[in-house]
């Protein structure tokens, strides 16, 4: 096994931090969103569904481009932040975190939506009639009964963020320790013709991604088996 360079380790740390935070934020955001999509039949539902699915269709460069404009020093979000005494988000870790959350949104929403549809409204109505409030229902009914959906959502989000490239390059560039994630570093190595370095990271990612998916899917099947 070839040695990893300090720069490699730095990129790994940034990547893991980005993936973990994105997954955590998305689980919190996607749960109510998916619940709303699963149980509402309002006209706005279609629009929201399309918005959620947009990152699946758009080239990452398009998403990155508009985010760069919006979050940058002249964009509405960037200017608001600066007016509040903060800094704009272009070429920063916070910026690529926002981008990752938007970019991976459909991968968190879709499995949860499936799980919530499968669950139906009934168990939640029952729990409510038995005196359980909204958070109580989430933790004692929805989470345990949709465990598989949450695991799949978390895994896909994590894995998809791991594979993010175009958006980050557009919005974050390649600042070591800040926005230089593994996929970008591999690109840099390949650009610099350092194929050996690109190879050791690429192979590592390939194996990691495969092992994670296999582990999770086997876990998930076991959980499904427990359910009657």
């Amino acid at each position: 096994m070839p040695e990893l360079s300090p720069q490699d380790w730095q990129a790994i740390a940034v990547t893991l931090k980005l993936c973990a935070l994105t997954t955590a934020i998305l689980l919190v955001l996607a749960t109510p969103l998916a619940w709303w999509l699963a149980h509402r039949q309002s006209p706005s539902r279609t629009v929201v569904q399309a918005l959620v699915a947009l990152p699946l269709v758009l080239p990452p460069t398009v998403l990155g481009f508009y985010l760069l404009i919006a979050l940058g020093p002249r964009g509405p979000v960037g200017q608001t932040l600066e007016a509040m005494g903060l800094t704009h988000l272009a070429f920063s870790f916070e910026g690529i975190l926002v981008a990752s959350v938007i970019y991976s949104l459909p991968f968190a929403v879709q499995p949860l939506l499936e799980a919530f549809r499968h669950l139906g409204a009934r168990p939640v109505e029952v729990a409510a009639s038995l005196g359980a409030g909204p958070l109580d229902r989430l933790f004692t009914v929805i989470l345990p009964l949709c465990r598989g959906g949450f695991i799949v959502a978390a895994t896909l989000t994590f894995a998809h963020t791991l594979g993010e490239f175009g958006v980050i390059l557009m919005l974050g560039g390649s600042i070591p320790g800040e926005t230089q994630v593994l996929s970008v570093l591999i690109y840099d190595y390949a650009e610099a013709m350092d194929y050996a370095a690109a190879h050791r990271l690429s192979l590592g990612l390939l194996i990691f991604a495969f092992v994670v998916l296999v582990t999770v899917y086997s876990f998930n099947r076991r959980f499904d088996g427990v359910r009657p």
Partner: protein
Amino acid sequence: MTLQVRARVRRGGFTLAVNDSLPTQGITALFGRSGCGKTTLLRLIAGLENVKDAEISFNGETWQAGRRNLPVNRRRLGLVFQESSLLPHLSVEANLMYGYRRTPASLRRLHPDTVRSLLALDDLLGQAVHTLSGGQRQRVALGRALLTSPQLMLLDEPLSALDTAAKREILPFLSGLSTSTGVPMLLVTHSAREVEQLADQVAFMEQGRIERIEPLREALTRPDSPLFNDEGPAAVLEGHLQETGEGEWQFVTRGGDGRPPVHFQVSGQSAHHTSLHRLRILASDVSLALTRPEGISIRNMMPVKIERLEQSDEHRCTISCRLADGQLLLSRITRQSVEELGLTPGDAVVALVKSAALME
């Protein structure tokens, strides 16, 4: 003690429009064909329908006033649905205790021991939810709802997904439950049988409206009642079952005001409903004779007094007869028979009831 509901709900071509006061004593049946809006009304009362134009108050407490809506979990009501609604990831015991644990101790009036014995749940506690039969699941669901000590129970066709045997198993439990727990119940059903067995009052629903709310006793005196759509009029007598010998059962009606009870021979085959308190007798199963006939296979012959004759259709009459205990028995016979026998109100005659007709 009332449940006040005013609501207007449009769903496609269907409109639910109610402005009624529902009784909150004993069991009130919401009876009507499927699609008449009874389940929507029940869900509205429960707070499960997202409706803006509604006002609901229960015993003076406002549950909904337009957009202001008391959430379901704070209405303190018990819900039982048509199909099994037990939480599949919990054991039977955890299901039972789910609501009890969430009920403040000061509001608990019904406790696990009482409810377990009322519904005979002790043997089920250790079982996994998915091993229970349909009837057992509904018993657990009833117990679970009761353990929240609800102010009102809402039952949405709780028996309609069950087969006949399971229905028979659960009916006796259900029939006494409102009285023994003191919890008023609202029962949505399209089955006249269930109304006759369980209800104290009936709200008749048709095309999104409540047409009439009346005590079951009164509803049964109208031969054109919607309850009689399927098999024609029937009388429902109150009383209890009694075993008189090996496989021989009697239904003893409730006497009252110093009146003697009347005894009906009941076929033993289905007499295992020992806690059955109501006996249903179809008018078409009751014949009338001027004198007590000899040499006849019919074992139930009781003196009655004709109270009213009504023409049901071109050929038949429905005759209301007063039994010795004061309850009404209905008989449906042809107009020719009425003319030949010269029956008029006030006549004392003999009603003949096949014992096999007493139970299904």
